[in-house]
């Protein structure tokens, strides 16, 4: 039992957790793909639409001003949640993927020339691979890949060797969506900064699982999605140090991001609006802030402690299953367990777990290069959130054991 968190009360905040699938209680262990939403997040969306919906910025009327205030208050909530210096450093995007694409364009087109290098790692999600490949094809840059150790950690010696005069950016995941490894990003940032190389951190799998302080990390860019942290779909965040965002050109053009437009010339708005062309998702921003306030009310330290309990309990019990192989055995892990049992295909195991009401993810988890490095086609992945329970872990373990006997 956790002393700091009342898990039953927390579960009651998530209506979906009490539903059944195939007449069995839902056991939702696919949180690394997306988390469920607490009532306060859904109510925040409803509240905006029912009580303060109006397009924001430059509206003189009452509702527009209330909506603008709510959107900008949400930005301040994000700023505080990740300990940024200023709201100017918080750009709302559609998610992690759009944030990385924004940087691949705005940063990549400005600072990368033929022969320059960008360092990523072998454990990246496709979202942190493909935008750089597209930049590579446009600009003739090279992608350098940090290899992994047998534990599923970044090979830091190899990383240091990859840093060169031509390195223009290091872009790595804070936490691997497949292996669960928490990467030593402080060290990565320090080593890169020693050579004046900026660092982008893909925080999609980290922000809902641990406190993130971008100033303490000294990250140049930190990106994440709302829907993986109990917030709504379709909104995410690009944090960038003001000194960087100031000098980067806009990504998309349109309304909201301009200061003055004539047919001859357009001057752009100040930060952060320069990067937010078109009507922003002022509903999503408010609901994301509600999710952050909800998380903060429990204390991220307490969430880390409880999820670590879950991870250790699940790992220990799963290791006892005959033929169990866990991918990612770092001692610094978030609550993600990728596994295979004997030679049972992930699709088969996943299909049968589903029939028992247990939702896990199967396949390559949008990390096909990592699967190749591991020499497999895919895995099953159980990923835990702070509303999961030890009883659910027992049900998962019993389910895996039962299914393994069927093959």
């Amino acid at each position: 039992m956790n002393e700091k968190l009342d898990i039953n009360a927390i579960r009651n905040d998530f209506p979906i957790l009490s539903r059944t699938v195939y007449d069995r209680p839902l056991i939702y262990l696919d949180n690394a793909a997306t988390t469920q939403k607490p009532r306060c997040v859904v109510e925040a969306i409803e509240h905006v639409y029912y009580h303060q919906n109006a397009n924001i910025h430059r509206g003189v009327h009452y509702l527009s001003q209330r909506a603008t205030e709510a959107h900008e208050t949400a930005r301040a909530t994000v700023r505080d949640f990740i300990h940024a210096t200023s709201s100017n450093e918080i750009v709302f995007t559609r998610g992690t993927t759009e944030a990385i694409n924004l940087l691949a364009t705005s940063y990549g087109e400005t600072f990368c020339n033929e022969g320059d290098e960008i360092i990523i790692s072998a454990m990246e999600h496709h979202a942190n691979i493909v935008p750089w490949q597209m930049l590579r094809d446009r600009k003739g840059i090279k992608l350098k890949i940090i290899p992994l150790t047998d534990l599923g950690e970044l090979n830091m010696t190899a990383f240091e060797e990859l840093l060169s005069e031509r390195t223009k950016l290091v872009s790595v995941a804070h936490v691997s969506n497949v292996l669960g490894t928490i990467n030593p990003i402080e060290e990565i940032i320090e080593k890169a900064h020693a050579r004046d190389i900026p660092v982008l951190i893909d925080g999609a799998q980290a922000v809902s699982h641990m406190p993130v302080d971008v100033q303490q990390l000294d990250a140049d860019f930190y990106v994440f999605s709302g829907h993986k942290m109990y917030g709504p779909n379709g909104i995410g965040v690009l944090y960038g140090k003001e000194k960087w965002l100031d000098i980067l050109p806009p990504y998309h053009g349109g309304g909201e991001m301009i200061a003055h437009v004539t047919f001859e010339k357009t001057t752009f708005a100040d930060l952060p609006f320069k990067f937010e062309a078109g009507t922003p998702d002022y509903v999503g921003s408010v609901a994301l802030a509600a999710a952050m306030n909800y998380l903060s009310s429990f204390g991220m330290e307490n969430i880390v402690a409880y999820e670590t309990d879950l991870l250790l309990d699940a790992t220990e019990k799963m290791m006892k299953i005959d033929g169990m192989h866990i991918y990612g055995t770092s001692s610094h892990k978030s609550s993600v367990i990728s596994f295979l049992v004997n030679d049972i295909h992930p699709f088969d195991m996943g299909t049968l777990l589903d029939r028992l009401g247990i939702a896990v993810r199967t396949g390559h988890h949008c990390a096909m290069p990592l699967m190749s490095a591991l020499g497999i086609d895919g895995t099953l992945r159980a990923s835990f959130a702070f509303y999961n329970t030890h009883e659910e872990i027992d049900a998962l373990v019993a389910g895996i054991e039962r299914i393994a006997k069927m093959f």
Partner: protein
Amino acid sequence: MTINEKQDQIVETFEEYTDWMDKYAYLIELGNNLSPLDPKSKVNQNLIEGCQSRVWLDAEYTNGMIHFMAESDAVIVKGIVSLLIDVVSDHTPDEILNTDLYFIDKIGLKEHLSPTRANGLLAMVKQIKLYALAFKTKG
């Protein structure tokens, strides 16, 4: 037996399994019993790539009848594949083209033919019909 007689027989067999896990246990048995595909057929040209599992499908045309051979890397998919090729094998292109594969729905496995499953089965059913059409055209 006609295609529909074969389908009805499968439906009858599955009616005996009231529990879902038993139904899947039977599919696993079928999958495990499916003869492995000849290496000359298990080639990329015959591969139907799903996101979650893969299916290889090959066909032979002799004496006006089509014979299908298939395999999958997932056993449950292999079980369904085994049922499918049993049903449609050794029939004429016209018989196969005019058939409605209703048994999948009746035995409660329709979800496995949904595009969201991405297991290669839906594409396999299409490919079976494409083979039939190709052989019919060839005469």
